[in-house]
Structure formats: C-alpha cells, structure tokens
C-alpha cells in the first residue's frame, strides 16, 4: 500500500514540478522513491496479509512479490529510458504518465475487489494510450495509439460487463465472497454466471494479448516508440498475468472445468500465432512483438495448470512469477539494445544488427544471452521459467499441451537464432559502430548477471509465496 501512495505522490509532484520549476532533481527523486517502495515492500514481506479499505486491497506475499518485481522493472526501465524521455518527449508529462501507469499495475497485483481490478487496468491503460502516441509526428505512432485505445476501450467494456454479470449473480465484488458463492452453489449456476466469466476472460486476454484478441499487439508494439514498447511488454504483461492468476485462482477455481479448456485452446493458438508470426518478420521490433504474444501463450499454460482441487494453489502462481521475472529481464535487455542500435542505424530491422559482433561486441554478447534466455536454452533463466511451467502442466496431466509448447519453442529457437546469426555472421557493410552510454552498459551488464544468477540458482525465486 505504501508503494502505491508513494508513487501517486511522486506522480502528482511530477505534474506540478513544471509550474514550480523543479525539473533538475526530479529524476533522482523518482528513482529514490522507487527504491523506497521496494524497501517498504521488503519490510512487509512475510507478515500476515494486510487488508485495506474493507478488503479493497489485499497485500499478501504474492502481491508484495509482484510489487517488488514491478517497482524494480520500472526502476531499470527509467534508467534505460532516460535519453528517450528527456530528448524525444516532454519529460514531466511522460514521467507522471509512467508513474500513474505503475500505480495501476500495482493495483492489478494487489486487488481484493473486482472494482479495484477494473480501476487498476484503466489506470494502467490510459497513460499507455497516450504514451504509445508520444511520437506526435510519426504516422505509425499515431496509428498505434489509436488502435490501442479503440481496441483497449472495447475490451474494457467486455471486462466491465463481465464484472457486472458476476455481481448480478453473486451479489458481491469481493473476491472471497464470490469464491464462497462458487463453493456454496456448486454446479448450480445460472447462465449469466458463465457469461460473466467468459466476458472477464475476454477482457483480460486482450490485455495479455492472447488469441483471439492478439491482433492489436504487433501494430501497436511496432508503432510505439521502442522504450514504450519495452514498458508494454514487461510491466503490462506482468501485471495482467498477476491479475489473471489472482482472479481465476481465488474466485473461479471451483468452476475450472468451464474455463480451463478455453484457456488451453487459447494457449495453443497463441503459441502457434506468436511463434509462426515471428518467423517471417524482418523488423526486429515486430518480431519481438510476436515473441511477446508467444510468451503470453506459455504463461497461459501456467493459468491452465492452476490446481483446482487444492482450493488455493500457489505453485502455479510462483511459476508465473518466475516466468514473468525471467521474461521481463530478457525483454528489457533486448529492447534496451534495440533502442541503442536503432538510434545509431536509424532502423528497427534485423539487418540493422548485421555484424554487431564487430560493431559492438558487448551489445552482441548481451543480446545473444538474452535471446537464448527468451528461447529457453539452459542454463539461462528463461529455461527454468519454461521448465517450471512444463512441470506444473505435466503434474496436472496436460502432457499434450506441453508437447505442443515444446514444438512451439522449437520454432522460437529458429527466429531468435536468426538474430544471433545476423549479429555474428552477416557482413556489416556500411553500418556504423554502435556507441552506448556508459550507464546503459552498466545496466545491461547488471541485468545479464541477474539473468545468469537466476538460471544457476532458481531456488532463490521459485518458492516465494
């Protein structure tokens, strides 16, 4: 809760800083504020769950773990995006948008009430609609913002309708009251209830860009400025999956038979579309957009293997946490590098990476490691993420789903290696040497170390809550 208050306060401060001419120290103060958020969250760790405002917000260990993760990602993202924010945008506006979006993300991981879920999603999304369009003169960026907004608003409508239908049946917005209703009525639900679940599923799968609501993702990701895309593919995905998991694990585990099959089908189709779509891309940003869709497919396996019998199962929650952690770090590295390379070559295409091994060996090495991690090659962190997912799915008897995911990840290896081959084995021709700011190099090196440590000692992060 403290982190939400701190970040909201910082957001308001940032808005006013333009008036009181207080821009100089803004960046360090925000970074310190995020560190404070992480510190407070760590202090609350392990204590019994805090409830706020009649269970509107619930800070259990899962919420705290995801809050720490989100704050850390925002922290690192702000360092990587400093140039982008100060040179290409109006700094204070965008900083406050980022802070408010982060507040929304934190609400999504700690809600105890469907209304808070809705508010969280809206608070996260509205700043992002603006951010996607922050390159005012770029046609693509405008298209991206418009598409994101229209589709997003449509999906939110579905979500809200779903919440209303659930309220109509269960008479409550509180997750636990709904869960009690599900247990009490056991199998005796009106049609409205199933419709409500379906609508909520539609709303959320739009946010995580899962089939059949993934169409917006490639265009929006490609059109938006690179660092904004990095934000969307890490923060939004992490928060949305945390919300997805919390809702379906707490409320709807009792009616799993209804939605699990749907999630399995969605997962298979998402894996297929994401991975096959990525193969034919020549633009790296678009390829990463499709790969983000594919990773949503893997994470859906985690949702599909929620243990329905135990009532409140945390093992697949832990799995999702680990996977989003590994995926976010891998994405941050690759988007950070893409940003630097694209700046010096003025192109997002894979060809811009030709001969990067000679033009900047460190970046090429870092990109190789992060792509291998995204592809799920041991001993990088991404492999353990996939391993835990496969393990929990096989544990739930979903061998066929895992077989399919294995085949999909083979396709994944193909397009990730394509970039690695371009970096090391394509002639560089007239492409310039890539110069990277020192603090970018340090940040990327730091992320790389985390990626490898996560792979060597996954025990640190796998049984958190």
């Amino acid at each position, binding site marked *: 809760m403290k982190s939400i208050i701190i970040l909201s306060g910082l957001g308001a401060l940032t808005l006013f800083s333009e008036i009181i001419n207080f821009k100089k120290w803004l960046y360090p103060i925000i970074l310190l504020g995020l560190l404070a958020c992480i510190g407070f969250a760590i202090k609350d760790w392990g204590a019994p769950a805090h409830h706020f405002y009649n269970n509107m917000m619930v800070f259990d260990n899962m919420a705290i773990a995801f809050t720490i993760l989100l704050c850390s990602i925002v922290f690192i993202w702000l360092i990587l995006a400093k140039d982008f924010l100060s040179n290409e945008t109006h700094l204070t506006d965008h900083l406050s948008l980022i802070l408010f979006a982060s507040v929304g993300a934190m609400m999504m991981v700690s809600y105890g009430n469907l209304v808070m879920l809705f508010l969280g999603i809206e608070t996260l999304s509205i700043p992002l609609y603006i951010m996607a369009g922050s390159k005012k003169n770029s046609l693509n960026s405008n298209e991206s913002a418009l598409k994101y907004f229209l589709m997003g608003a449509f999906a939110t409508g579905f979500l809200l309708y779903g919440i209303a239908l659930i309220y109509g049946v269960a008479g409550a917005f509180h997750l636990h009251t709904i869960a009690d209703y599900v247990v009490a009525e056991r199998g005796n639900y009106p049609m409205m209830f199933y419709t409500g679940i379906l609508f909520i599923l539609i709303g959320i799968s739009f946010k995580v860009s899962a089939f059949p609501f993934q169409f917006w993702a490639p265009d929006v990701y490609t059109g938006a400025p690179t660092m904004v895309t990095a934000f969307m593919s890490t923060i939004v995905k992490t928060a949305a999956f945390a919300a997805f998991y919390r809702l379906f694990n707490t409320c709807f585990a009792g009616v799993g038979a209804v939605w699990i099959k749907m999630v399995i089908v969605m997962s298979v189709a998402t894996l297929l579309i994401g991975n096959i779509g990525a193969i034919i891309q020549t633009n790296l940003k678009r390829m990463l957009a499709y790969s983000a869709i594919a990773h949503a497919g893997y994470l859906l396996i985690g949702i599909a293997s929620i243990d329905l019998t135990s009532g409140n199962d945390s093992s697949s929650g832990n799995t999702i946490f680990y996977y989003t952690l590994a995926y976010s770090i891998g994405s941050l590295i690759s988007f950070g590098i893409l940003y630097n390379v694209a700046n010096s070559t003025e192109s997002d295409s894979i060809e811009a990476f030709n001969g990067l091994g000679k033009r900047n060996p460190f970046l090429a090495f870092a990109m190789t490691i992060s792509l291998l991690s995204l592809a799920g090659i*041991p001993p990088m962190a991404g492999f353990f993420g996939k391993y835990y997912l*496969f*393990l929990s799915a096989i544990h739930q008897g979903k061998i066929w789903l895992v077989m399919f995911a294995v085949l999909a990840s*083979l396709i994944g*290896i193909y397009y990730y290696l394509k970039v690695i081959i371009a970096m090391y084995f394509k002639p560089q021709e007239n492409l310039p040497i890539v110069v990277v700011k020192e603090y970018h190099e340090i940040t990327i090196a730091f992320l790389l170390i985390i990626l490898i440590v996560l792979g060597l000692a996954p*025990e640190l992060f796998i049984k958190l809550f």
Partner: protein
Amino acid sequence: MLTALIIFFPFLLSFLFFIFKRNSLINLAFGASILELLVCLVAFFTFQKNAEVQFPLEFSWIPSLGIKFKVGIDGISLILVLLTGLITPFIILSSANKNIENPNAFYGLIFLMQAALMGVFTAFDGFLFYIFWELALLPIYFICLIWGGENRQKITLKFFIYTILGSLLMLIGFIIVYLHTPGSHSFDWNQMVLAAKQMSSGLQVWVFWLVFMAFAIKMPVFPFHTWQPDTYTVAPAQGTMLLSAIMLKMGTYGVLRWLLPIAPLGVAQWGDFAMILCIIGIVYAGIIAIKQTDFKTLIAYSSISHVGLIGAGMFAINVQGFQGALMQMLSHGISVFALFYIIDLIETRTKTRNLNELGGVRSIAPQFATVFMIIMLGSVALPLTNGFVGEFLLLNGLYQYNSIYAAIAGLTIILGAIYMLRSYQLSMLGESSAKTNSFPELSSSEKLILIPMVVLVIVLGVYPQPILSATEPAVKSLINVIQQNPILTVR
C-alpha cells in the same frame, strides 16, 4: 572430488580462454588438456574394479524440486570420461597448422564442450544430466557456425533444432518419471529407477519413446539421421571430430544409463523395434557410404552404420552386448577421430576431398599411406585391431538375442570392408593425379597425433582386458537393475 575436478577444470579453462587473448594459444590449450587427461588417467588407474559409483560428489542444488548436483564415476562412465579426456588434446593439437580466427574463443568453446561432456557422462541426477546435455549443444553449434564451411547457417540450424527437439522430449519423459518418485519427488538416478518400476507399462511406453527420441537423434538412429551427414560435412575438422568421436557417444551412453533402466517395460515392448531401426541404419548407411565420393560424407555415413551396431547390441540387454557397446564406443571414438584427421590432412594438402581426384599417394608418401592403412583396418574391424573386439562382442550379444538380426547386422563387416577399402584404393593406390603429385610426407607434429592413435588401435585390439574388466561389474549390476531384480550394489 576427482569428478568435480574433471568437470570444473575445463569450465575454468574455457572461462580463462574467453577472457584472455594471447598469442600461441595452442600450446597453452594443449598443455591444459594434457593436464585434464592426466586427471582422467588417475581416475582410471585408481578406479576400484567393482560396481560402486566412485569418486562421488553430491550436494543440493534446487532442494524444493529435489534436484541435486550428484556426480560420480562407475565402470560405464569411466570409459566415456577416458575417451573424452583422451581425444580432446589430440583434437586441439590437430588444429596446430590451421589459421584459426579468434583462437581464444575457439579453444574456449572446445573446453566448454569438454566440461559439458564430462558432466553428461558423470551425472547421476536426471535434471543435471539434462542441463549438461543442453550445455554440450551450445559450443558445438557455435563452433560449426563460426568456423564451418559453405552453407553452414542452414545446416547447423537444422542440427540445432533437431537436437533441441530431442532433448526437450527427453525432459518431458524425465518429468513423467520424476512425478512418480515417492515423497516430494527427486531426479536422483536411483529414485527414478525405482519409480519406473511402479509405473504402468502404458506410461513406460510413453517414457521410452520420449527419451529414445533424444538419444536416437543424437546417435543418430536410422530415420532420425538426416541432420548428420550434412553437419559432419560442413563442420570444421575439429568440430566434426568432436561431433563424431565424442558427442555421438552421448546418445549411446544415454541409452545405457538412462533409457534402459527408467523404462524397462517400455524397452520390453518396443526395444525390439528400436533394434530393428538400428539394424536398418547399419545396412542403409553402409550401402549409401559405398556410393559417396566426398570422403568426409563417406565417413559420416560409416559412422551411422557403426553406431547402429552399438545401438542394436545395447537393446539386446546382455553382458556381451553392453560390454561390446562400451568397447566399441571407445574404439570408434579413436578410429573416427583418426580418420577425420587424415581426411583433414588430405584436404589441406590437395584442397579436395573428392575421392575421384585423389590417388597414388602410397608411392609418394608411404608413411602416410601405412598409417592410414592401419587406422582403416581398425575401423573395418580386422582381428587384432580395436574395432574387432567391440564388433565381435556386439554381434555375439546380438546373436544371443536373435540369430537372424545378428546375421543381418553382421553385414556391417562386409559393407565396412567394401566402402573403406574402396576409399583407400581410390585415395592411396593407382596413378597419382594432378592434385596428389607433390603430396608431402607426414610432418613430425602430424606423427605426434597419428602414432599414438596407431598404437591405441593395436594395443586395444591385442589387449582389451583392462577396459573389459573395468566395465564388467558395472555392466552386470546395470543388467540386474534393468531386469527388475532388487538393486544389489548401486547406491
């Protein structure tokens, strides 16, 4: 501790080689790999000839999932560790006269490969085995990709995706067995073997196929072999040596250590089928090898043929079959390394590998031709050479299982003689061609590699007893485990 030294010393070396760029790296690399060989030899000579897992090392890695870092050496591991330790220095030495770009990365990758292979051969935890198995793939992929020949990007990508497919399926198979281990589950080899005995035969068939796919692709067994000839041909000489002499044995070793014990009922149902696939591979690859004109491709096919016999012998599940398989893994490693080295020498001297463009070398460079002759005879399995002991035991084991299979598999001796003698005739005998007119004789550094190989070919053929007696207790105890008797000595 010795096992840890064997695994982590090359890891350390590869790390150092990546970081420090120096001149004359080859001397350093060769010296370091000789040190590693000495450690392996210490392990070999201090090895107690019983079925115990020796030099064990065990500590918890990911306790919440029951994953341990558990390594050790038994008679079966010992042979493969010895092979890896023995061949690597010579592979490094064979690059002496090459002009290699980025030599520090090259030797670093070779050492990384060696470390991963040592891990594969000594791991007694299924998950650890899988990690090392995948880790061995990365360096060889980059070696082929960076230093390989024409058209390498497509071919190595096919190789990479093919083998990753196999290993992921293996991982699924292991997870299925893992979920049947008692308590909070464990990947420990003993636990997995025990758990496998409680699994229904339907499930064991699943496990059999999932795990068999991985090993069949790596070996490769007949319908899964399509990546292999291309990859061998396109890889740099040292890459081909690593692939054929050592990496191929990962598959055969995996069958012995993991596939047969953790899916005994699956093997009982489908082992016969797998054996037939192996035997098809023997004949099929042997016949294709006869028609090849590219010497490297020819040896690649001969490798499929040889490994098919090893596979067939293993599925017979008897002492002779297992012993023969182990013996043949060792001697095939030696022979195929020497053959690829000879091909590399021919290619650097004449700029061609096409057999039709060669010939007449015997009269120009008699030493070269003689050494080639001895190594070729070892590969053909002439009595008193290393190949004979292994093939004889394998065919003997196969005969006890089914005499018809043994008769068909025995064609390998005839086919092997045809394609090897033909290649010898075309390259060494007859009139010398324009390309072989000034064929230089062996230099002293080349002798340094080939003479030890010739000695090994003959010594192992005349006196294989140390190898056989080192493996025998472990092989017998493994057969006990597979045949569902209570576990005797394997702890």
